[in-house]
């Protein structure tokens, strides 16, 4: 085992995949400075900086992937994705289908997401649900440095476009990384804590929060199962349903705004397919339907906190 921050784990994942497969390349605004190890190891053809033009960065990734390269591009912060939607949605997400399967688009888009004080709404906007709603695009969001490494390596090997959201507050958090080849499959959720009385499903940074809540609840004698989705699309419906069929109670938790978010999808899946197992309402704890405020106390209130999770579970089991 060794210790890396999530950003270091991401660089290591790209590093290893670039070593493994000469088709992998990486580019983005300032990529040569941000990923200086990659640049040193793989040179200017495979590690490129770009102008400040998210649209053409994304478009170029899509074009290059259609040709069989495997670009990993860094679009920095989630709100900047708004400049890159056209090629990601209309080409990467649709052109395989529209062409009757002639093309595939093995590309990865790295984006920082999540709320931090002072950053505000032009840097912080959790947009994973958009890409889950669109077609032909996979969406991944790791909960730790090790998860980031394992999921990113799989994402780079995946033959489809993958949007890889990583939480800003986790970027510099160190974590233990398994030695050797470390791959985590896309599309499989992880039961990160087993339990009997209620299921809490979340992803990204809030997995830690959910585990804290579960630990507190365990002290109170309430056994909670915590699921880390890992992949938001394709969503591991089986894991979700299996857990809720066991516990009969569900709390879904994420930082993104609620309306039409991933939590809504989870609730709908369960209300449709595991209704008879449910012992009570499905509770959603999400960020509010507001932009992200910069002011620290407000920013710190944005995401659901452990006490709210505890209270929701208590409400269900009470």
């Amino acid at each position, binding site marked *: 085992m060794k210790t890396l921050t999530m950003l270091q784990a991401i660089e290591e994942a790209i590093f290893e995949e670039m070593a493994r497969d000469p088709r992998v390349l990486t580019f983005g605004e300032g990529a040569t400075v941000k990923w200086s190890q990659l640049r040193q190891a793989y040179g200017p*053809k495979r590690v490129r900086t770009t102008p400040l*033009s998210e*649209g053409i960065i994304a*478009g170029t990734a899509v074009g*290059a992937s259609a040709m069989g390269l495997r670009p990993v591009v860094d679009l920095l912060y989630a709100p900047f994705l708004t400049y890159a939607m056209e090629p990601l949605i209309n080409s990467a997400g649709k052109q395989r289908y*529209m062409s*009757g*399967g002639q093309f595939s688009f093995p590309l990865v888009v790295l984006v920082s997401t999540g709320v931090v004080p002072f950053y505000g709404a032009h840097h912080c906007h959790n947009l994973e649900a958009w890409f889950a709603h669109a*077609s032909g695009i996979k969406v991944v969001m790791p909960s730790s440095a090790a998860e980031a490494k394992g999921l990113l390596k799989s994402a780079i090997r995946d033959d489809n476009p993958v949007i890889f959201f990583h939480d800003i507050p986790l970027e510099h958090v160190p974590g233990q990384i398994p030695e050797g080849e470390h791959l985590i499959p896309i599309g499989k959720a992880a039961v990160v804590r087993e339990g009997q009385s209620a299921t809490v499903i979340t992803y990204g940074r809030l997995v830690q929060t959910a585990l804290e809540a579960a630990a507190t609840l365990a002290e109170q004698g309430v056994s909670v199962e915590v699921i880390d989705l890992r992949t938001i699309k394709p969503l591991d419906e089986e894991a979700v349903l299996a857990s809720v069929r066991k516990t009969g109670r569900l709390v879904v938790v994420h930082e993104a705004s609620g309306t039409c978010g991933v939590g809504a999808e989870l609730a709908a899946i369960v209300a449709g397919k595991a209704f008879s197992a449910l012992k009570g309402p499905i509770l959603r704890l999400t960020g509010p339907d507001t932009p992200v405020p910069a002011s620290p106390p407000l920013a710190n209130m944005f995401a659901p906190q452990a006490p709210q999770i505890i209270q929701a579970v208590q409400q269900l089991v009470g």
Partner: protein
Amino acid sequence: MLLIRTLEDRLGALCREGKAPMIAASTGQEAAALGVIDTLGPDDLLLTNHRSMSHLLSRGADPGRVLAEILGKRTGYCQGKASHLHLSIRELGIMLTSTVVGAELSLAPGIALGASMQDSSGIVACFFGDGGACEGVFHESLNLAALWELPILYACENNNWQAFVSVKEALPTARIADFAASYGIKSQSIDGTDLEAVREAAQAAQAYVRKERRPFLLETHCPRLRGHAVLDPMHYVDAEEQAAGWARDPLVALSQRLAQAGVLSDEARAQMQREVDLEVERAVAFAMESPYPGPEELLTDVFA
């Protein structure tokens, strides 16, 4: 060119009968397409936009499979999922027919990068309209192609119109080629109705791109003879401009040139037309008789 014209006219007739969707015909722009594509090699790659028939056929697409695709049939190049507006043909290097204006410009640098990094000597021809030049991505594409020295022949067919908007209402310059200089990109702006002139300019342009591995912008000015889409009544285009357009019909120009040069007699022309008609009818029959995709196809080819 005769094939393009005949096929598109036939499609127009089918559309009027309710048997085909309304396509954006390339009528008036055939020389601009053929003149460029004639100079390309088999390793070269193409991207085009909604007005792509001239590009598809110039590149050697099978009229039957094109028509089948347009009608949404399983035997089409994209199994019927694309129809006319998104028709790509990988085996001919046609990587994209884009109907979101500008997507062709967005993908071109990546296609060129993919070719270059995988040691292909191929270049990319990216066809787009004057309307495409209004999208910001046009500039982003030129900029990246210049910076990364990508082998792209940007081929702008400037037909003076972007749907129902005249280029005069949309840009302060009528010459799209003028934008290239800001990026240090060489360019040329020519009459796109003269097949020989287009071929000559394209020959030089593609040779430059191929040798220097740098972008070039070739602008061809042509009339849009059938309007935005084939049933467009064009009441927003004044009659004079329409007449002037038809006076520049590239097919008439070519026929006259060949006739004057004595290489195409009236009889040979008529014979050629008969053969093309036959080919088109065969294509129509093939497309009409082809089956639609089965319902299971709704869910296939979403993910690789």
